[in-house]
């Protein structure tokens, strides 16, 4: 269903056709998708969504694609886990974890945005898809391109860790290792996107790509029984995820799926790369770019494209922002794993760490229905916790050694 009206500049409001463009020619502001909400309102319903596919595509009416062929058919509809143990530990009556550690196919929320980007890229006639990435995005682009039979180019800095390179090579995209640092790759990719007719998912396809994040808001509301949460905690890298969750919640109201949005939006960053949270806490409406230095590498964007808009969305919702140290990130990962059995990557540790801070400050209250967004799987960042999880109990291969170590009798267990 074609519900897109136009691309519209977020700064000056000038409208453009829904092509592979991302910058306003008038003021150079970023473009985003504008929909025909009246038309969507007439056709969408809770029942239609519930009868749809078990993936993000149940919300296709609110996504920037023509359809009806969708690539990435299994992305989304990840569990919304009622986190009773973690809630009890933190003192929250109703805490949920939106668990994108099990998103399909590459175990991070990027599968949502890439599914939308690659579907739109194919609709626009592209045969080559590309991205600049140091981790989750590259994995997702490479996997989706393989499944779709499209050519893929993944640009990475020359000093990226071997494990991360392998995670991309397995899907056989063209992995381009650029001799240079993050800034060099950044500049080169911007230039290539301008010169070549490729679909760069996070550059010239970005207006469509970013919309995929809205599905986290839609799913949360549907899985809560068509209720909006009182509080959400969202990790911030570019800030796009936070702004799109805010947009998604409001769209549900606009098209009549819910009556009101009272959700407070809270942003989470790591201290070693917290330009947006620092600006918020300083009461500024602009951020100062930083050189990232944190173990939370998937959030290490020092000059975030949507930082300004994330500040705006959080202020509009009367939410908050905060940041945590790398030690607190590790503690957050452990806490989530040990209370809910969910192993998150470092971004998840940031979210849990900030959630804990906001509860302690009284910003999030005991009775608030709260959702924390866990956006990637811990198996991808094992190096971050390797020194913080202890060692196995080493015993002799005998019953005596086992029983002595664990102080267990015949009918009971104990801890070593």
């Amino acid at each position, binding site marked *: 269903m074609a519900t897109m009206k136009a691309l519209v500049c977020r700064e000056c409001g000038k409208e453009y056709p829904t092509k592979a463009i991302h*910058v306003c020619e008038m*003021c*150079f*502001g970023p473009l985003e998708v504008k929909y025909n909400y009246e038309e969507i309102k007439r056709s969408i319903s809770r029942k239609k969504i519930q009868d749809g596919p078990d993936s993000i595509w149940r919300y296709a009416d609110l996504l920037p694609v023509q359809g009806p062929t969708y690539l990435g058919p299994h992305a989304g509809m990840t569990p919304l886990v009622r986190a009773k143990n973690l809630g009890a530990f933190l003192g929250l009556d109703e805490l949920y974890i939106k668990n994108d550690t099990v998103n399909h196919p590459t175990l991070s929320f990027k599968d949502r945005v890439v599914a939308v980007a690659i579907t739109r890229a194919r609709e626009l006639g592209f045969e080559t898809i590309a991205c600049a990435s140091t981790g989750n995005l590259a994995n997702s682009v490479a996997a989706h391109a393989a499944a779709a039979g499209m050519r893929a180019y993944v640009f990475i800095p020359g000093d990226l860790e071997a494990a991360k390179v392998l995670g991309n090579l397995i899907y056989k995209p063209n992995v381009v290792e650029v001799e240079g640092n993050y800034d060099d790759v950044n500049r080169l990719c911007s*230039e290539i996107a301008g010169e070549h007719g490729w679909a760069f998912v996070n*550059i010239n396809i970005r207006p469509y790509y970013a919309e995929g994040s809205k599905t986290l808001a839609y799913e949360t509301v549907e899985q809560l029984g068509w209720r909006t949460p009182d509080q959400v905690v969202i990790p911030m890298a*570019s800030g796009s995820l936070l702004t799109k969750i805010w947009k998604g919640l409001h769209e549900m109201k606009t098209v009549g799926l819910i009556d009101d949005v009272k959700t407070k939006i809270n942003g989470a960053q790591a201290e070693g790369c917290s330009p947006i949270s620092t600006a918020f806490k300083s009461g500024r409406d602009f951020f100062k770019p930083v050189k990232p230095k944190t173990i939370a590498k998937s959030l290490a*964007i020092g000059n975030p494209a949507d930082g300004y808009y994330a500040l705006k969305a959080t202020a509009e919702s009367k939410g908050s922002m905060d940041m945590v140290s790398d030690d607190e990130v590790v503690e957050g990962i452990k806490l989530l794993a040990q209370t809910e059995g969910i192993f998150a990557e470092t971004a998840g540790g940031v979210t849990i760490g900030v959630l804990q801070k906001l509860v302690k400050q009284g910003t999030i209250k005991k009775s608030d229905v709260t959702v924390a967004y866990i956006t990637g799987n811990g198996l991808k960042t094992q190096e971050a916790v390797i020194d913080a999880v202890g060692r196995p109990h080493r015993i002799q291969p005998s019953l005596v050694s086992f029983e002595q170590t664990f102080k267990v009798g015949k009918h009971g267990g104990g801890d070593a």
Partner: protein
Amino acid sequence: MPNMKFHIRFPEDKIKEPIIYQIGHEFKVVTNVRRADVRETTGWMDLELTGDSTEIERAVAGLRKKGVIVDPIELNVVE
């Protein structure tokens, strides 16, 4: 004629300097400021440079040499 878009930032001590004027004279590029926010202690501009590719590269290097921070218009795209 090639053109490229940049987001440039001025450190506090460079805000009063006519750097864009200087770049337009020192290199064969046309400078075109499309959006800007210059305050007492911070300043940024969205700037288009038009000219030969090598001359644009030289102008960018010139901006950096003058202490200005130059990023692509998209800011950070490596995710």
